[in-house]
């Protein structure tokens, strides 16, 4: 006699399937929203690394798993190539007012808050993420082709336990908002 808990074959809550992309992406600095535009191939990652301790039995077995590193990251492609986005992709200000964006000089790190949103089609609810304190850590690369050419972007979250950018001890990196079903 097998386990009696097997009672729901296949999809359990099919309305929870998520289709589509992160459809709205913005960076926030000093309470101003800067709309980044389309980011095809946008991926939100929450990474974790673990240390696995093994006991002294033979064969040795894992007897302890300890998280030792965690991070938030967003990668994608920025399609809208204008002054604000190029400056930002180069790790500089979002509030650029110059047509020239200089490259190569030593500059202070430019921190910002990063937010994204997508729609759960089954009930129209919005799923969001927020990374409180971020830095750009991608190269800038602009290619050629018949389709809209964008530059890759990688945004990495930093610890904001002290709340400079909205974080806290309970949400030092950021959050993911997944609302109850409507």
């Amino acid at each position: 006699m097998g386990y009696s808990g097997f009672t729901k074959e296949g999809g359990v809550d099919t309305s929870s399937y998520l289709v589509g992309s992160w459809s709205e992406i913005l960076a926030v600095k000093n309470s101003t929203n800067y709309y980044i535009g389309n980011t095809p191939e946008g991926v939100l990652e929450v990474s974790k690394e673990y240390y696995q301790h093994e006991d002294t039995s033979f064969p040795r077995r894992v007897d302890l798993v300890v998280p030792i590193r965690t991070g938030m990251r967003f990668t994608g492609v920025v399609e809208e190539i204008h002054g604000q986005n190029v400056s930002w992709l180069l790790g500089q200000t979002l509030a650029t007012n110059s047509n020239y964006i200089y490259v190569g000089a030593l500059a202070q790190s430019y921190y910002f808050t990063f937010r994204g949103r997508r729609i759960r089609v089954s009930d129209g609810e919005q799923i969001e993420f927020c990374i409180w304190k971020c830095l750009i850590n991608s190269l800038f690369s602009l290619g050629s082709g018949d389709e809209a050419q964008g530059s890759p972007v990688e945004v990495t979250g930093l610890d904001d336990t002290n709340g400079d950018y909205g974080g806290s001890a309970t949400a030092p990196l950021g959050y993911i908002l997944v609302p109850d079903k409507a």
Partner: protein
Amino acid sequence: MAIPERRKSDNHILSIYKHVKDNFADPQSADVNYGDVTFDASSLDIWVDISILSHGAGRKGETLVQFDVYSRVRGPMPGGDEYGEALSQLADALYESMHVDGIQVYDFTVPASPVLLSGAKLMVQNGGGTFREPESDQTLDIEDGVARRSLTYRLRMVEDASRAFSYYD
């Protein structure tokens, strides 16, 4: 095992009709034929036919809905529609009514009082994956003095997008 209400083609068809009826802001006050095979358009100047071409939604496939917009080029309509303006306006209004992520599915067991089925949506998504856009939008040849434009939409349920080869419920 009974098919869940949200996957029944009958509910899908009536939900599509309901969506169009509730959201179609018609600038021409055209007659809309919701799948009535006895519909007689001989005395009409401008009208819309809605047809369901296939029934794949909720069956790991896609439902194709076609809106045929007809306008008499030189009929009894005042001024006629020689340049197809009325035709285009009507097609645009239909396009607007379908410019949504998904169409809510209702349970029409009691047709007069449909019951909203929570979480059941027919996604408006064309073959290229773009939401809210038609699969095709074509102007067809004028026949017997009647111009025709045809919009086709591809609808599928959220569960049809599952990567699993099959699903059960």
